[in-house]
């Protein structure tokens, strides 16, 4: 039990996160690399996340509609769909898509850098590869996932508006009002805060798996795969935690 690989991995990841906080906020700062990672991990995931968010918003609205009509609660569709998207669906969809796309790419990239000694090469070039590769990526996912989430939320709501208007009509003002009437700061902030943690977890797991990859090219595939699996699971665990914490804080 005490020498299980799972616990060892948890411990290793915790140390890794500790190293991130220890080294990440000391100069020198890799601004250029951070920006370029933000571009790659954030902007280039926008299409994927945006399309997914849009489709989920539309599908959710269309699926919900018959039931709501049955209950005579058609006017509640915007509220229900809106709150679902803002509070739960957009964060989860964004985090899962980013875990799939970015988690695997970080895992594969760092592990291939590791097995081809490029990480060592950076180190002997007098560059701290942890700062240059890991801190920038972890920061990039931590910063970009909330922004991706916000854009996915926006697109999801736009899709929901479209879905509501496909059958029956609701003005944009009423749609907005219906959602805003039930939306509190707590909803929005807990969604944003939780995506910050999602982003951090995705970056942490991807980097950890890639940074300590071994066994040559086989290790690259394994790192990418386990990064995705673990990051996705971590997203759900964090989501569960987020529900509990926001309940405790009275944000729900």
């Amino acid at each position, binding site marked *: 039990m005490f020498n299980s690989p799972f616990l060892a991995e948890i411990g290793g990841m915790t140390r890794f996160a500790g190293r991130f906080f220890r080294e990440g906020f000391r100069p020198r700062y890799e601004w250029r690399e951070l920006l370029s990672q933000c571009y790659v991990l954030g902007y280039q995931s926008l299409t994927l996340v945006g399309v997914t968010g849009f489709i989920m918003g539309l599908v959710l609205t269309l699926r919900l509609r018959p039931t709501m009509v049955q209950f005579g609660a058609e006017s509640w569709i915007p509220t229900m769909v809106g709150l679902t998207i803002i509070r739960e669906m957009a964060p989860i969809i964004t985090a899962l898509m980013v875990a799939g796309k970015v988690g695997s790419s970080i895992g594969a990239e760092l592990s291939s850098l590791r097995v081809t000694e490029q990480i*060592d090469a950076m180190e*002997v*070039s*007098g560059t701290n590869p942890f700062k240059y590769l890991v801190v920038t990526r972890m920061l990039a996912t931590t910063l970009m996932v909330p922004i991706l989430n916000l854009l996915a939320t926006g697109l999801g709501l736009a899709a929901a508006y479209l879905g509501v208007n496909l059958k029956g009509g609701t003005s944009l003002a009423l749609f907005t009002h219906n959602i805003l009437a039930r939306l509190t700061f707590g909803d929005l902030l807990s969604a944003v805060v939780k995506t910050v943690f999602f982003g951090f977890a995705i970056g942490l797991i991807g980097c950890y798996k890639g940074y300590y990859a071994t066994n040559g090219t086989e290790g690259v595939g394994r790192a990418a795969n386990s990064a995705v699996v673990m990051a996705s699971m971590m997203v759900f665990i964090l989501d569960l935690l987020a529900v509990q914490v926001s309940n405790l804080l009275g944000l729900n």
Partner: protein
Amino acid sequence: MQPAAAVAPLPATTSAPTAEVVLTVAHVSKSFGTNHVLQDFSLTLHRGENLVVLGRSGSGKSVLIKCIIGLLPIDAGTITVLGQDVATLGHAALDELRTKVGFLFQSNALYDSMTVRENLLFPLRRHWLAARRGQEEELVRQALADVGLPDTLDQMPAELSGGQRKRIALARTLILPPEIILYDEPTTGLDPITAREIDQLIRQVQQKYTTSALIISHDMNCVRLTATRVALLVEGRCYAEGTYEELRQRNDPTIHAFFE
């Protein structure tokens, strides 16, 4: 251990009797679990000298130079590079020291996602000296010219041949003028002709930049062409030391096995 001790004074008298010591490895041990890769290993590198560490594959040669550059921690002993004990250095000091020590990886370790130019600029940007500002392009061209590949500036590493990549990797170590270059099996995986070219390049570079070099190899041609002194690494110890000719004429079967 005994043979090593016997031949130890020889290179000092033959090649550079009064030369300054730039690198000392003293009684270093390194183990991976139960695999004792280095056991009480010692060697000394003098300025302007090309020391080849000869050993069989898996004998811990690469581990040795990774320990020297601080990529791997050592279990016991001391490694002194340019007068500084590597094990005691902090991050900043270690980075500073590494600018003076070039490292040519066995796999070249070129950054695949960057062009040749960016690969060469990378260490320059890391150590951005005011004196070098505005001269980066000039330095890159100079380094590429030194390795004989001036036209590959905007190519990606993947587009280059193995020999070219080795040259670019060498250019990258040269761009921050090093005092010591550590070569990790520079000719492994290259065809014999290209290997000879690289060997010649190593000599040219050593003459032009007046560096000291520690070369890890098991390629006897490489040893013959580049070494001013050879150290034999057997079972984690410095088994023998001397010039190529001296060692070749030994009758010790362990040494002799390398020369056949």
